[in-house]
């Protein structure tokens, strides 16, 4: 830690679309929903850019090609980004590089510093994960290596012990979120009964995985190719493929922490089901008072009421007909 504030060394969550930093993931998600994933017509906040595009196409019949308020080149709506999840890896690395240069710290040094910074509890909760994460990754990598060896040697035993998923790292899924700082060790074998075969991969980020994967390529086991998710350290050989995130609603692999952050709002609740009838906004109104029923929806107050032509006493044609060019003289 030394002279520099360690806070600065740990990257805050940042928005891929506009490269703004945020205090934590929660604020970042709020920002994205307000700035980048909001329907420009009905102000509905969607969970992903693609969700917004589909919403606008289905409900409002318009074609969105660019994510609003995004930096040039960062306005692709087809990338599935939620908070810091889903950011293309090269952009993460690039961003880290730039940020560390900005902070006057060569990447390597920063890495070392992070490695040695140790006690996660000393740093702010949202950022504490980084050094921990490194260690976890290391531990897990070792575990994985060990397991691989074990598998080869005593495959039968492994099958029994790990419920048929030999590749899964022995992280007790239930206990991990409660002890985020505690690296798993081999002395804590997962007594997971085979009856819970594919405890979904959600628990992996439950360890407080940092939003920004660290440039630690050497250690990291191969990342399963999946939809631009940030590199996930454990389980390189995870037998059941990760469930594809449905395009709508994009349920993020939410950690318990994140779910708490999201103020109990079930993720995806703001998404219209894809079966939403196209005329829903209109027909929903037909039940209400007929006149001007759907004209004064929430958006009205956000909108400026500046009319491009606002002279209520005369029409544009009357104004125009008075011009010398058009005036009629007998």
């Amino acid at each position, binding site marked *: 830690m030394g002279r520099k504030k360690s806070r600065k060394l740990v990257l805050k969550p940042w928005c891929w679309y506009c490269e703004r930093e945020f205090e934590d993931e929660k604020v970042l998600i709020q920002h994205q929903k307000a700035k980048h994933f909001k329907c420009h*017509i009905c102000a509905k906040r969607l969970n992903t850019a693609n969700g917004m595009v589909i919403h606008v196409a289905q409900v409002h019949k318009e074609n969105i090609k660019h994510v609003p308020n995004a930096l040039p080149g960062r306005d692709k709506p087809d990338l599935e980004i939620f908070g810091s999840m889903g950011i293309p890896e090269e952009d993460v690395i690039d961003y880290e590089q730039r940020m560390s240069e900005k902070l006057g710290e060569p990447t390597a040094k920063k890495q070392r510093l992070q490695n040695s910074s140790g006690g996660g509890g000393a740093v702010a909760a949202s950022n504490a994960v980084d050094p921990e994460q490194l260690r976890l990754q290391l531990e897990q990598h070792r575990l994985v290596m060990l397991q691989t060896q074990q598998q080869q040697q005593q495959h039968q035993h492994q099958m029994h012990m790990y419920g048929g998923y030999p590749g899964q790292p022995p992280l007790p899924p239930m206990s991990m979120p409660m002890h985020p700082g505690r690296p798993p060790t081999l002395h804590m074998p997962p007594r997971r009964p085979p009856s819970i075969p594919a405890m979904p991969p959600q628990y992996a980020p439950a360890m407080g995985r940092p939003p920004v994967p660290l440039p630690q390529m050497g250690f990291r086991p191969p990342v399963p190719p999946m939809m631009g998710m940030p590199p996930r350290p454990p389980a390189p050989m995870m037998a059941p493929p990760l469930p594809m995130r449905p395009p709508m609603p994009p349920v993020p692999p939410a950690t318990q922490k994140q779910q708490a952050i999201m103020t109990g709002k079930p993720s995806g609740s703001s998404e219209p089901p894809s079966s939403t009838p196209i005329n829903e906004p209109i027909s929903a109104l037909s039940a209400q008072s007929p006149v001007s029923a759907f004209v004064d929806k929430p958006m009205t107050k956000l909108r400026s009421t500046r009319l491009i032509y606002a002279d209520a006493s005369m029409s544009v044609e009357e104004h125009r007909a008075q011009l010398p060019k058009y005036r*009629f003289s007998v």
Partner: protein
Amino acid sequence: MDPNQFNQVSPDVEISQPPSDSVSEVTFSPKANFLAASSWDNEVRIWEIQSNGTSVGKAAFSHQAPALCCAWSQDGTKIASGGADKAGRMMDVSTGQSVQIAQHDGAIRCIKFVEAEGASPIVATAGWDKMLKYWDLRQQSPIGTVNLPERAYAMDCNNPLLVVATAERKIVIFDMTNPTTPFETVDSPLKWQTRTVSCFTKKDGYAIGSIEGRVGIQYVDPKQKEKSFSFKCHRDPKDLASPVYSVNSIAHHPGYGTFSTASNDGSFVFWDKDARQKLNAHSNVGGPITSTAFNGDGKLFAYAIGYDWAQGYKGNLSSIKNTIMLHAVTEQDVKPKVK
């Protein structure tokens, strides 16, 4: 649904020899693919639209001041027009001769043919002199006059329904069985100045557009009045702080009864009022749309691009072209969606 399937329009065709100034009204002959347009350059021009989309200038006649409106007779043989020269003129397409048929004390803003079954055609004119006049095309004087509460801004007729929208948000509804007495005078359901009005194809009501990007769907029959509603349209989607554009033109599709709205935001949108659905939208046509029309069989949609003077001098950019575009109407545009 694939979002990319929207707005995939074959490019619209520009008319040949477009007017030299903004078009005040475009209208198609109900019988043949003849298009007429009145323009601020005083001229009323007529084109024949051929099946391949090319257009041939057929005829033209002029007012002494900007031509503000034009209309075809039901049989497609005559074109009538009104202008800021306070005159109504009519041209017989077969002879190419134009004569004055109407006279007001102010500019004639609206003109329509009123044609009952089996009766000789009558032309209705409404102007900024707060008068509505009926002309039988043979006499110098009108066969009927009606005082309007205000200057006429828009008018549409689908016999026997005739609707005149005036300044100060008044709407005067006439039943052509009794053309000189208003059936009803009402305030517009919209809070802002009326720009355009168009009768439903079923003749049971009308759609009205205002300068504040809003359309009111109004039924005339008291029993159906509660079906009336209004909705916002042509709002700039990108920017909440952007100005609100006006609805310059509404046109009803002759077959499906769906309608289009066009705005000075440079877009036109097709709607189904019964399902309360937006059917299709086409934006960024290159300038404000001042007037629109479907042709007789509803397969062609003409829209006039030109400056509508909504922003005074400063909006009169040379980049805005004065022209008329022809859009091949697709079923996606106008056919009500099956639920």
